[in-house]
């Protein structure tokens, strides 16, 4: 239906640069999550996409149609995009039926057709029978589904969702993630989903674009983003990661503090480059220093600073030589105490190098 391309999009608010040249493509039928902390520019991007903001630089294309540029924007009402708002934005002076029917009225459909379509879409979101209620008579989850129905009933080319689940409680949020995923699969509408919740992005999206400080850090499938982060920010924002600053010694070998560690290097760093070594806490292997495991490649003796018992796991903070603090999640089968000497192994395949 619609392929969306953002080309070098820029936006300034006063002196702060909210977007510094965003380039991003959403292919037809794709569900892309814009993921980032608050203030990263994801909402600004969405507002530009919807036509509420004029970019200061760059372009937005829908298929072969230029819809936003600093010279002008196609107004929101002519973009064939629906937006589900964080606040749902259900009109309090209209019934559920009137809310959902509004977009169809704008398209001048006949009354019968409108009634039919509204009935159908309320069925899709499991709200049949609620037509004559008002928004305030519905629960948060139901309001959320009305907002979704209102956006979908007009069969938009593109669906935009602005943190749609952030006002729901945890259980409902999990349920709605799958609901949105299901509806997307049924309708196949190109969708851009803004969120700051990485778990939500991972569950819902085909592709995730991680944003930070007005830049796009990385775009990829949830697996790619998690398994092969390309920056320190992505590594630490998606899941947890130990990030150790270091310097390249030779290809595939990095020096962090007093340790020399072998790591996977996809970026082809040169000796002397400043890099960051990322490793997930649960990828570390920890043994008692007296255990038979021999010291080998990528091992070091460290001192346990703190440990927290989490049931089946324990969360360990270990000090490695050279004042390197590292966090490890291991099974609780063997408990350690503070000041124990531990043998820490950093498996080569779990160590990834990114720009420093």
């Amino acid at each position, binding site marked *: 239906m619609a392929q969306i391309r953002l080309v070098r999009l820029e936006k300034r608010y006063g002196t702060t640069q909210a977007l510094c040249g965003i380039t991003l493509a959403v292919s037809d039928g794709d569900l892309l999550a814009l993921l980032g902390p608050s203030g990263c520019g994801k909402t600004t991007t969405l507002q530009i996409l919807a036509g509420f903001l004029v970019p200061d630089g760059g372009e937005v294309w829908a298929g072969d149609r230029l819809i936003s540029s600093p010279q002008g924007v196609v107004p929101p009402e002519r973009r064939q995009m*629906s937006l589900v708002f964080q606040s749902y934005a259900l009109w309090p002076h209209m019934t559920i039926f009137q809310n959902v029917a509004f977009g169809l009225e704008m*398209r001048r459909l006949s009354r019968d057709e409108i009634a039919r379509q509204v009935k159908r879409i309320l069925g899709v979101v499991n709200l049949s029978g609620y037509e004559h209620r008002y928004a305030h008579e519905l629960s948060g989850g139901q309001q959320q589904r009305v907002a979704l129905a*209102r956006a979908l009933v007009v069969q938009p080319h593109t669906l935009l969702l602005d943190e749609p689940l952030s006002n729901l409680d945890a259980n409902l949020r999990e349920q709605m993630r799958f609901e949105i995923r299901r509806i997307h699969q049924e309708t196949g509408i190109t969708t851009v989903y803004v969120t700051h919740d990485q778990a939500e992005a991972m569950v819902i999206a085909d592709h995730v674009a991680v944003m930070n400080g007005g830049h796009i850090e990385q775009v990829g499938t949830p697996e790619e983003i998690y398994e092969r982060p390309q920056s320190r920010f992505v590594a630490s924002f998606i899941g947890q990661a130990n990030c150790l600053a270091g310097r390249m010694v030779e290809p595939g070998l990095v020096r962090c503090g007093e340790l020399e560690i072998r790591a996977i290097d996809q970026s082809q760093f040169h000796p002397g480059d400043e890099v960051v070594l990322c490793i997930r806490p649960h990828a570390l292997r920890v043994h008692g220093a007296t255990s038979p495991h021999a010291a080998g490649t990528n091992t070091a003796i460290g001192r346990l600073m703190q440990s927290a018992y989490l049931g089946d796991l324990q969360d360990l903070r270990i000090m490695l030589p050279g004042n390197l603090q590292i966090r490890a999640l291991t099974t609780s089968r063997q408990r350690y105490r503070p000041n124990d000497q531990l043998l820490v192994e950093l498996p080569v395949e779990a160590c990834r190098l990114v720009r420093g």
Partner: protein
Amino acid sequence: MSVVAPLLIARRRYRLDLSLGTWALAAAILLVMVVVPLAWIFVASVHADQDNRLTLANYAEAFTNPIYLQPVRNSLILAALVVVIAVPFGTALAWAVSRTDMPGRNLIRMLVFAAFVTPSFLGATAWIFLAAPNSGWLNRGWVALTGAPRGPLNIYSLIGAVCVIAMYSFPYTFAFVSNALEFVPSDMERSAALLGANWLKTTWRITLPLVRPAIIAGALLSFLEAIAEFGTPAFLLIPARQHVITTQLYLFFQYPNRPNLAAAYAIPLLLVTAGLFFIQQHLLRRRRFTTVTGKGGVRQPFLLGRWRWPIFALCMVPPLFSLVLPYAALLATSLSRAWGRGPVPGNLTFTWYRWALVENQGARHAITHSLTYAAVAATIATILAVFTAYTVSRRLLPGARILGYLAMAPFVVPGIVLAIGLFSAYARPPFVLYGTAWMLIVAFATRFLPIAFSGSESALRSIDHELENAARTLGSGPLLTFRRITLPLLRRSILANWIIVFIPSLRELSSAVFLFTPATAVITNVIFDLSDEGNFEPLSALGIIMMALTFCLVAVAYRLFGGAVFAQRQRA
């Protein structure tokens, strides 16, 4: 590829987007309405009255001639004394009503509001009956009781005018302070109490300092209103030959007519009121805690114990002077053949009500005029306010913020000054409104536009932009969105604004005095003339009728919207 979607596009006809033109039209009307009369004051002030030459002589004459300087001094003294009386009363009442377990708190609240709605010139008239040097009832009572040759009170004096204005001015401070007190959490006071302070000390050291910005804001507003007040000085000080700025402005329009000198004389007054207003707004903005959302924690009233009734009695003093005595005096006079004879048998008559409502064509017309002009003015102000507030709050035009200042500007223009500007602007071509009803309607609409504007603005602030944006993404243009989404959500606020513009329009005196002609006289014009002639009995009847109409509307508004509506008006 969906088959339906392209079909939907094809079926849709794009309307021409008229929205920009609509906002621009509203902005243009506002510009003409506010800027033209104000600009004319400046233009007039630099032209000579005799030959219309460009000159600064008006300023020189206005501010060197001692005859014209004395009123400036009087105005400043008057306004300062009003503040000195009104602010402590307003603060004390606010504290008693919102922080203590005093009996009759709602009664006091209602009485304060009634005092707020009552125009002070009506109070001034009533106090003439009560405290005129020889004939006033209180003075005669004093003479009868003590055998003294004359009573102690003289309402025809600066101090008399101060007292009358203060009695109708304390509601400003009351409104600001009681609103601020709502947000002082009890914890702060309890902490002081736990550290050993009694309630008096706690109030003095903790509570009042916390609401100091509100007290100052109330004081500034009292000062501003007192210095701009025309009715009471006209009724009480013109007979005493003690002029203030506003009555001096009035004199400039009597023979010999000096409108340009009047304009020059008015400009410093305008600068003072504008300055005070900005200070006040700044204060209210800086100390946001007076308007934060949600209430500040749990609040426990002070238990006054045996002081409950004495404090209640104290709180009844301002309402006694501003309502009980004046309305009793007005009612008694309106039912008397001659007020000087007092409420004795044989003096009772309904003649004056018959006169006002049936017999006298002038009075009857005045009542009709007042009602229709106020209604039309309220309609114009409300509509313009909604469009302007929308343009401002959604930044629909470049420089929209300036439009907001423009819409608030009439608030700092004393009615009499606005009248001078309107007279200069519309008594000559191309727009000759003088002599027509439109002159008064435009005056009322302009003067009370800020009330409607601030009401619309705060209502719009409570409407989430996302509600409008949602309609936009679903295919509705800006104007249609405004009509289908925004206006229905504003419905209650629009009706409320209409009523709170209608009420002051009905009792507006200071601009009407300048702008009416015999064919367009309103109730206040007739009252003013009757006062001039000393015909106090029909005046009282007409005043009572005017207030009866006002209180009916107030009651309707209360039923529909509750008290919150009027909080806006007081803050405007």
